[in-house]
């Protein structure tokens, strides 16, 4: 039987199966970046264990000339470097796909599939013959397979060489052996393997000015640009690299040139209770402050978040979501903290949530969150997730308007107080629910007040009077209404044809959704879409739901949390919205969304209108 092999140019998925701690990560990144340097969009994803050394880890690279950045699912080429996961990895190869493996030790025929092309390269043997040091044998094995893949996929070796040169700039001693390993792999493959494979990379111009960046890095830079001067945090996957990147950026951007001192204070706290406590203390005292954490950290912070809501203290909390509940799957992605953040803490609370779709928005929204928190005097959550946070992704370049000034909100200065401006800490003089505050130490005689989590009147005086309490709680609701004027607007994507159905989605689902919508459109299924970017929901979100026969709320959690929030806060008829959920810890795919929508629509007995070509049949 003639084997049918996948043929594709600039449109395929390569998956690397490695052992954690074997040095594969940098080699795999090198592979992905060299394709990007050829002008072809790539989107790599780390699938890693909660472990430092020894457990399986995968790196999946989607190559897509069309620029689809979501996870596709399946693998056209599996680089199977981990015997532990061999069986599973072989199964995952698409029919007609390719399996690249270390053939040093012969494997019985039943370990393979006959519908895929198997490419064996004796990597261990080559390394053992070339290197004597055990560590070198391991590390260079990774570079050697990158060299071989360059030959197999027709990746321009000059791009790989250039990247290695950039990586080892100033460490020339390491540069030469790495280049040698790369060439060794390439030359061996060219001489012994069926180069090129059916899947190849061809130079293109689809990357343009786009940058390749991890969301956590972008968040950290957003905090620098947004003027955060206090960062208190506690290590937790997948958010730790936000704080680490913030430290790195501050080492560059926040050193006072004259004195060498720092325009920032970064504290690794003893736990999340302390980190949010420090943020609240700093913001109360007029500094811009943030913390970064994940679901379990937010759980610990909730008492303080209630205090900040009720006492009206700004706080920015970046939640890089992971799979819960409890420790859950700490290295897998989810959007499962929507409800726990929207209503964090005891009593009646509601919090502002921002949902960036990628690193670019994560940068912008983090800077915005610092303005919003000061403007609204309340906690603001930046809701990213592991998929956005810990994977390098292509996105439009980050932007900053130099004429932008920080919105410090309603703060009375010494001059204001001196001029006799009336001050009641909880007095709603502008009728927008937002009241004026003063920083400690502003004026010797005026403007001091007592901040507390207990009930108080409009002048911050302790009271247990029911009417004063209700007055205050109602004003907090007014303030939440006002928040709608400041948070990012939703993004509407209308089908060119009349659509009776709509999808609501947010955050990291966006890249898969863009692709799914294009596929549905191509199939003749008209579908409007709205990307929610914030809570509280503005009118266009609610109007969108009400304007369609039915909407699907697509999200990455079990319970359809955003749908619950929409129904609860938008007074939507629950029958109008149903959930499409994906929550196994892997990023949602376009395939999954498309199939789910098709299934639902067929259950509604909807016959898609075919486009002209199909209609002519």
């Amino acid at each position, binding site marked *: 039987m003639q084997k049918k092999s996948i043929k594709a140019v600039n449109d395929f998925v390569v998956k690397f199966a490695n052992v954690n701690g074997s040095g594969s990560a940098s080699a795999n990144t090198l592979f992905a970046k060299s394709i990007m340097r050829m002008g072809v969009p790539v989107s790599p994803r780390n699938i890693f264990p909660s472990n430092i050394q020894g457990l399986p880890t995968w790196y999946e690279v989607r190559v897509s000339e069309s620029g689809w950045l979501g996870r596709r699912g399946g693998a056209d080429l599996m680089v199977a470097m981990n015997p532990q996961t061999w069986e599973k990895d072989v199964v995952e190869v698409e029919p007609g796909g390719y399996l690249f493996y270390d053939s040093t030790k012969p494997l019985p025929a039943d370990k393979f599939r006959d519908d895929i092309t198997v490419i064996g390269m004796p990597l261990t043997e080559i390394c053992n013959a070339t290197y004597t040091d055990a560590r070198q044998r391991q590390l260079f094995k990774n570079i050697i397979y990158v060299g071989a893949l360059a030959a197999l996929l027709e990746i321009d070796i000059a791009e790989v060489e250039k990247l290695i040169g950039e990586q080892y700039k100033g460490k020339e001693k390491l540069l030469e052996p790495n280049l040698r390993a790369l060439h060794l792999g390439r030359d061996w493959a060219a001489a012994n393997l069926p180069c090129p494979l059916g899947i190849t990379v061809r130079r293109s111009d689809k990357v343009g000015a786009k*940058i390749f960046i991890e969301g956590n890095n972008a968040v950290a*830079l957003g905090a620098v640009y947004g*003027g955060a001067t206090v960062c208190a945090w506690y290590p937790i996957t997948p958010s730790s690299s936000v704080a680490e990147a913030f430290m790195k950026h501050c080492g560059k951007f926040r050193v006072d040139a004259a004195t*060498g*001192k720092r325009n920032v204070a970064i504290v690794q*706290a003893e736990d999340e209770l302390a980190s949010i406590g420090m943020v609240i203390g700093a913001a109360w005292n007029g500094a811009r402050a943030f913390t970064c954490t994940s679901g379990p950290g937010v759980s610990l912070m909730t008492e303080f978040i209630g205090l900040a809501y009720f006492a009206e203290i700004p706080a920015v909390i970046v939640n890089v979501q992971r799979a819960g509940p409890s420790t859950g799957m700490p290295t897998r992605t989810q959007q499962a903290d929507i409800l726990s953040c929207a209503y964090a803490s005891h009593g009646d609370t509601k919090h502002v949530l921002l949902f960036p779709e990628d690193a670019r928005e994560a940068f912008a929204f983090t800077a915005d969150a610092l303005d919003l928190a000061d403007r609204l005097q309340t906690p603001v959550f930046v809701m990213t997730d592991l998929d956005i946070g810990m994977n390098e992704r292509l996105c439009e370049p980050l932007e900053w308007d130099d004429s932008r000034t920080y919105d410090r909100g309603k703060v009375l200065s010494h001059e204001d107080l001196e001029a006799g401006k009336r001050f009641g800490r909880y007095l709603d003089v502008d009728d927008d629910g937002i009241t004026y505050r003063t920083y400690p130490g502003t004026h010797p005689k005026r403007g001091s007040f007592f901040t507390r*989590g207990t009930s108080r009147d409009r002048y911050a005086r302790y009271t247990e009077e029911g009417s004063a309490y209700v007055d205050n709680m109602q004003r907090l609701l007014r303030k939440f209404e006002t928040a709608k004027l400041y948070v990012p607007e939703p993004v509407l994507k209308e089908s060119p044809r009349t659509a009776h159905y709509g999808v609501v989605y947010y955050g990291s689902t966006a890249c898969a959704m863009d692709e799914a919508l294009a596929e549905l459109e191509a199939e003749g299924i008209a579908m409007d879409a709205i990307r929610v970017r914030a809570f509280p929901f503005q009118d266009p979100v609610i109007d969108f739901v009400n304007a369609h026969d039915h909407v699907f709320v697509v999200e990455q959690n079990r319970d359809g949390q955003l749908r619950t929030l929409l129904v609860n806060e938008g007074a939507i008829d629950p029958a109008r919205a149903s959930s499409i959920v994906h929550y196994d810890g892997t990023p949602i795919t376009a395939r999954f969304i498309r199939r789910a929508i098709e299934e639902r629509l067929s259950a509604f007995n909807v016959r898609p209108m075919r486009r002209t070509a199909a209609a002519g049949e």
Partner: protein
Amino acid sequence: MTYLAKPKLHHPDLPANALGFTRRDYEGAISTLCAGCGHDSISAAIIQACWELAIEPHKVAKLSGIGCSSKTPTYFLEKSHGFNSVHGRMPSVLTGANLANRDLIYLGVSGDGDSASIGLGQFAHVMRRGVNMTYIVENNGVYGLTKGQFSATADRGSKSKRGAVNTDEGIDLAILALQLGATYVGRSFSGDKAQLVPLIKGALTHPGAAFIDVISPCVAFNNHDGSTRSYDYVRSHNEAVNRLDVITVHKEITTEYAPGAVQEVRQHDGSVLRLRKLADDYDSSSRIAAMSYVQGRYAHGEIVTGLLYVEPDATDLHESLGTVARPLNALGEKELCPGSAALEKFNASLR
């Protein structure tokens, strides 16, 4: 801004300090604690100390947790901003506040339940970090607001008002503070104003983490026979090791002491802590000796009070972090935002 109004009429002859303020200018609202509560004496001592040091009231930020003791910041320094935070979590809020503006004086007031039970973790870490603050625990060994349960500082074997015997070991926060690196550690008794006021003054002028454990009897729930925090018990078991005078930069040193009996400690800001020894063998310059002495005397049922330890070359968290001299909350776009040109460079590095 206080809850209960207090008559603002001043006696015309009330003495004024260097700033022209009288003691009344450092007061707050009328206390709502029980009559005879030790905490009110501590509030009075804080007022006296601030007045004597001629601190500008609005330059103090007073922070507390939850509990009877944590209510007291309402009862002093009404021109200061106050923050009644979350139970056991004042230290983190104070730390954040301190990071935001290093120019204010931070006064943390807490209780034994707030600091030794629910808040022991934050207590430990704020000491470790050397936050420049005065941290006072008003220690009565009992939960007042919830009516008489033991706190974690209650001595093992002591009796509650209802007759229950505490079977858990008591936590000595002063010993913990010493171990954890606090650079100024004192203990006092709310009933001994002469000892307490200078201790607070010393703490307020100290440029690092200053901690004072103040035994403060609870007249409602812990002032009975069998309690080790009653007025009677503390009076009869109080062993003061020294007496402190705080001489600020501005004051001339006039009092004469016999050589050998007095130890002088000059602090960064020029203020001098002058210690008169009451116990010949006590050395407040040694952390280890202090811990050993206090624990040795505790084994004999004695409560050691006084300035237990002071580190004259203390540093604080800002020094550890290398922050700028200007308060971080005063920095603006110019200092903080790298701008679009730097961003374009950053973008270029990611292609």
